């Protein structure tokens, strides 16, 4: 996370969240009073419209106050403002006299709020660049393995071992000279294949690799081995970088992957857990609830804890 990230925008967004909470509560608690003040109490649908707007305000409050980075959520308020202005515009056209004046006054107030919302939202967009890392998908995980560094390194260095504990890998074949051919079970049961090469190899310390050709999404990875303190074995730290297209496209891609049952952060943690099991106990540990061993998607959809049919 960038140090110069603009906290002011988040604070502003939070304040708007509290405003939504207050307004929403009033609209839900006293819809009649609100429609009177707004000059629309002559319409039959006013009461329910005000309640609906109130509920929407509570939604804004929820996402703004409940989020760790509320600023981008201000766009939901901007959309709400647009809707309000449209509704008020139609009410204005239908009315005359003191009611018309009241509607106009409320419209002016909403327009003023819209300016503040838009300002915050635009500010949030501008500061995003400083917060987001260059790559939308940067995964890392670490685990301690009760085995000597040399052994742990050697097992990983033989990349053909990787599918034993990396659940989504179908196979890795070395093709000589640090090059290898990777096959992956992708979402929707499609197989994805690519070539990779080892870029750096410091025995017992570090291996880094990158995809060379054929990869749908370019990817790179590092694995770092160090002695855990006090004879606790080896600390293994993994970082994977996927060169997803930046900005919205990448984010939508990630959201789509999650919908298809991929949880990349959890997957890499589970991969390391299996690596630890293989190194320490000799194989991947299985239970009847998770017969394949630690599997991210299986943890969401467990089998009952009873033996399966043969």
């Amino acid at each position, binding site marked *: 996370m960038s140090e110069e990230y603009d906290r002011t925008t988040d604070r502003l967004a939070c304040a708007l969240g509290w405003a939504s909470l207050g307004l929403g509560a009033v609209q839900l608690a006293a819809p009649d009073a609100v429609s009177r003040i707004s000059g629309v109490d002559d319409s039959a649908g006013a009461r329910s419209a005000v309640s609906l707007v109130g509920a929407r305000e509570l939604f804004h409050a929820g996402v703004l106050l409940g989020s760790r980075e509320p600023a981008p959520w201000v766009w939901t308020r901007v959309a709400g403002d647009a809707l309000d202005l449209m509704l008020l515009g139609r009410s204005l056209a239908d009315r005359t006299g003191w009611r018309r004046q009241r509607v106009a006054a409320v419209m002016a107030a909403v327009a003023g709020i819209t300016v503040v919302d838009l300002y915050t939202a635009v500010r949030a967009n501008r500061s995003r660049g400083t917060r987001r890392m260059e790559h939308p998908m940067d995964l890392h995980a670490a685990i301690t393995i009760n085995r000597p560094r040399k052994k742990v390194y050697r097992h990983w260095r033989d990349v053909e071992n990787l599918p034993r504990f990396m659940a989504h890998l179908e196979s890795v074949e070395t093709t000589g000279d640090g090059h290898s051919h990777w096959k992956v079970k992708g979402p929707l049961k499609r197989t994805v294949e690519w070539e990779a090469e080892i870029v750096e190899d410091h025995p017992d310390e570090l291996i880094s690799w990158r995809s060379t050709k054929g990869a749908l999404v370019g990817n790179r990875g590092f694995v770092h081995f160090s002695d855990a303190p006090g004879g606790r074995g080896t600390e293994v730290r993994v970082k994977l970088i996927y060169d997803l297209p930046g900005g919205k496209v990448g984010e939508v891609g990630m959201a789509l992957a999650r919908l298809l049952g991929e949880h990349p952060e959890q997957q890499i943690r589970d991969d390391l857990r299996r690596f630890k099991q293989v190194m320490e*106990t000799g194989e991947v540990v*299985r239970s*009847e609830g998770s017969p394949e061993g630690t599997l*991210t998607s299986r943890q969401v959809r467990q089998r009952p*804890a009873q033996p399966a049919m043969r």
Partner: protein
Amino acid sequence: MKANCWMGRNTVEVREVPDPRILNARDAIVRVTSTAICGSDLHLYDGYIPTMKKGDILGHEFMGEVVEVGQKVSTLKVGDRVVVPFPIACGNCIACEHGLYSVCENSNPNAGLAEKLMGHAPAGIFGYSHMLGGYPGGQAEYARVPFADVGPIKIENGLTDEQVLFLSDILPTGWMGAEMCDIKPGDVIAVWGAGPVGQFAVASAFLMGAEKVISIDRFPYRLKRAERAGAQTLNYEEVDVLDALREITAGRGPDGCIDAVGMEAHHPTGVVHAYDRVKQATRMETERPHALREAIMSCRNGGTVSVIGVYGGLLDKFPMGSLMNRSLTLRSGQCHVQRYLEPLLGRIRNGDIDPSSVVSHRMRLEDAPRGYEMFKNKENECNKIVLTP
């Protein structure tokens, strides 16, 4: 085979399920000869442990005869008679190397689930939710025992099933509860809960040199059992426990306080009980921690509170101020059973402890549903039920 399955809150059914088979090279299959219903099974029965699934086979206290071993099990052979510890432990990770078997780092394939609730994952346990591994339990005709080269202890003939069965859980659990109090000559130990674990904690505290042990419960028949083990008893529905303990210890408070109750405690004051009962029923907290609260409040300054009763998640109104300001030590854990098997088997052999004395009922496996109901409602002075398949 037949197995006792969890079918939802307050429902267990003995059903026909497939026989277990070897999944890992270090597995063994055990034909169960005796299995027991544990007080902690009632937390599952009552539906307070998250991540249970319809059809899960229950039971984590069992023993039997080895009928098949995986290719990497060299310590056991077909025909061996074994007691199986309830935590599943690999014996290779740092935790196991330090004797912390119930937090084995490798035996829980669903560690990711447990991490969400607890931060880090404990070991897998037989028949005790998917968050703790999704392993079928031993209330069945057969059970698969992972890491069979580490956990099970061989039993020579000459000892009955009932004498050794409780090595699987409640005897070492009671023992560890007392051990965590670090008992010194002259110490007074108070034990909340006079169920089988509490009874074993009483016996263990005496064996470790406690001067006086006080047992707290509300069922006279259970208090009577504790009394037989030498304890002074308090019925919390009749006396104010805090006051009574002050009186007994001349104002100091017990040196060690053992919570052998856990997450479904009762409180003599209706209002307080109702408060936690409602919060628990609506899942706003998972625990009803009256016993733990009282244990903390009662303990002498600088004393130790030892928690062996099972808790599942979050609790409210925890007297942290009392714990911190009075220099109390809080120790806890699922029992590291593997650590205690040999020494406790020795004590059974030489007659220091006779675990079979806790058994009050013997039933067929098929009668498990009736057993759960009776155990839950404390009917017929039910203390401990042993099931035979």
